């Protein structure tokens, strides 16, 4: 293998890939703009739906009577903003509710047997499948809650009790985690998943483009007749795919940090959640190492499989299962969000990297497990590259035989007798 040739081929591959619109969109633009757009879209949608709900007028039917001392509550119901009390509904109210002519039925019933004077019950009949109906229920429920609180406060005052005494038993909570802890937990959950997915996305199209795409464009043979050894060609292609995977991962991490700081934090000003986006240099280093490990693994696996494809479309169909396999360790890791990387979990490829990222963000570094993770990943990459080298040694592969089937190749060549 010659470094100069690898360098020339690498630049050539990279230049070609960065001029392909789909690769730039998937490997650069999506990782950068995914989070800001997702967050913006999410909050816009929530605000829009809330605004829409608030704009609805809740149509109520009130049945029954309240004790005389509570006529104020009935008046409040009639005067409630966004509520219209319907009085001229004919026939069965439940049927009207089912038909959508009503949003809720408020059934009032005095409780004369109750030891509390003037006690009553409010029954709210609504349709949970209808947003308008749920909204009407919430509005009435909130009004009744407010009225009850006011009534209790008045009773308490009559008994000489202040607001705190009226509560009797109180619960006070205190969160000892800092804003940074909260952010780290959030980042740990998101990054360990998204970094893996983004690196895989970053490798996906370049791996197909540089193998199956090359065959489809009839440039395979052009490249195979240039004056360099085949090892240099494979290495340049491999490094170029891995570079684009690392680029997608790195851009995604930066975009997430910026999004949390610039987009999410301002949106949370009214909530009690405070975020502090800061990543230690060591954590950043571990994450970069993780992105490199992931990219090297995905690039090798995807290239080996895509090499058999006769066209770009074939390549996409063949590499997609690898893409789904990526989700398996993520799902496994997701079951144990609080668990740290151990010497046992470090033996499972991808799951180990996912947990390593999560730990690093939380400031946890279990070095012997990290060393095992690196060794396992390196072994996997070496195995895949050895397979790629073995595959390339067969000339039928270069001329696009085996009908684009890895299994046919395995049957005829890898497992053939003699």
């Amino acid at each position, binding site marked *: 293998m010659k470094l100069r*040739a690898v360098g*020339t*081929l690498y630049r*050539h591959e990279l*230049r*070609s890939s960065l*001029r*392909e619109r789909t690769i730039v969109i998937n490997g650069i633009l999506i990782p950068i703009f995914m989070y800001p757009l997702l967050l913006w879209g999410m909050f816009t949608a929530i605000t829009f739906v809330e605004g829409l709900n608030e704009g609805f007028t809740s149509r109520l039917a009130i049945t029954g009577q309240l004790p005389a001392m509570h006529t104020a509550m009935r008046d409040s119901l009639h005067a409630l903003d966004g509520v219209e009390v319907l009085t001229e509904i004919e026939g069965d109210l439940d049927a009207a509710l089912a038909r959508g002519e009503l949003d809720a039925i408020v059934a009032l019933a005095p409780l004369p047997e109750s030891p509390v004077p003037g006690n009553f019950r409010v029954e709210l009949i609504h349709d949970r499948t209808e947003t308008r109906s749920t909204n009407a229920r919430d509005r009435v429920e909130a009004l009744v809650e407010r009225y009850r609180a006011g009534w209790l406060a008045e009773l308490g005052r009559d008994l000489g009790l202040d607001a705190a005494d009226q509560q009797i038993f109180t619960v006070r909570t205190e969160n000892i985690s800092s804003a940074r802890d909260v952010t780290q937990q959030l980042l740990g959950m998101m990054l360990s998943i998204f970094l893996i997915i983004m690196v895989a996305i970053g490798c996906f199209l370049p791996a197909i483009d540089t193998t199956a795409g090359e065959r489809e*464009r*009839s*440039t395979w*043979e*052009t490249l*195979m*007749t*240039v*004056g*360099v*050894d085949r090892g240099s060609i494979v290495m340049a292609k491999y490094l170029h795919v891995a570079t684009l995977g690392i680029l997608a991962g790195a851009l995604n991490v930066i975009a997430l940090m910026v999004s949390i700081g610039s987009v999410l934090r301002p949106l949370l000003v009214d909530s009690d959640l405070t975020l502090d986006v800061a990543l230690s240099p060591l954590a950043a280093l571990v994450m970069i190492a993780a992105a490199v490990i992931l990219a090297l693994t995905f690039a090798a696996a995807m290239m080996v499989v895509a090499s058999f494809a006769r066209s770009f479309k074939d390549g996409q169909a063949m590499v997609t299962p690898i893409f789904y396999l990526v989700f398996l360790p993520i799902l496994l890791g997701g079951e144990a969000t609080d668990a740290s990387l151990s010497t046992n979990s470090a033996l499972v490829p991808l799951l180990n990297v996912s947990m390593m990222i999560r730990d690093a963000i939380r400031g946890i570094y279990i070095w012997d497990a990290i060393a095992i993770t690196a060794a396992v990943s390196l072994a996997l990459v070496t195995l895949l590259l050895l397979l790629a080298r073995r595959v390339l040694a067969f*000339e*039928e592969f*270069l*001329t696009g035989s085996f009908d684009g089937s890895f299994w*046919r190749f395995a049957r*005829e060549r890898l497992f053939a007798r003699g």
Partner: protein
Amino acid sequence: MMTHLHTPAVAVHDLRKSFFDEERGEVTAVDGISFEALPGEVFGLLGANGAGKTTTLRMLSTVLTPSSGSATVMGHDVVKEGERVRRNLGFHSASTALYPRLTARETLEFFARINGYPEERLNARVDQLVDRFAIREYEHGRIEKLSSGMKQKVSIARTIAHDPPVLIFDEPTVGLDVMNAIEMVKVVNELKAEGKAILYSSHIMSEVEKLCDRIGILHRGRLLALGTLDELREATGEHYLEDIFVTYVTERAGTADAVPGIFGEPGTPPAS
């Protein structure tokens, strides 16, 4: 590169290539052929589709490995010295397309550089090619945007970008319009005049007649005849190459050794 005019640039001896096919079993695509090509000579391989022309040329360009026999390009063995063979070779065929996302100039730079053309003379070489093939007007245009005629020019220019002593043109005029095909023939003649050894495969008789100094007739993997056009005329009694070809393929296939003065039996060295 300086080459002695009588030293073969390409030497093929008893070259054979068999493939394994799951349905057909062992298939012999090239069955023990031998020939030589000299510097400044256009050597034509004439044959119908499936005759073994492309397989032969792919073995010479090291894309395929021979099952047996030997071949050298500028003295380098195609099996043991693949990289050196490729550096001395420009290979042009229907299956060697250009990179669509590169510009014409980038294409020439890439192929000159990757084939080891000296870096300090690379720009001058690319400029020379751009002028020679009249590419200047669209040198910064992407290949995917060029017309087929423009692509053809860039493709030939990239084949000779590293100034190799041996050139292989496998069915180079397939799919070209008349004007581009004529241009192609003109370029091959110019390259021959520059002293390049050229292997030219085609099934278009008129092209082979015009261009080739010597012609090898290939049929079902076997070289049925080899000689100059005049030698082939004399041996068959036919004037037109088309008739000569038909004579060999239909009447004398398998008995080419019976034709006096013509090398034809697989495994026999070429007539000098």
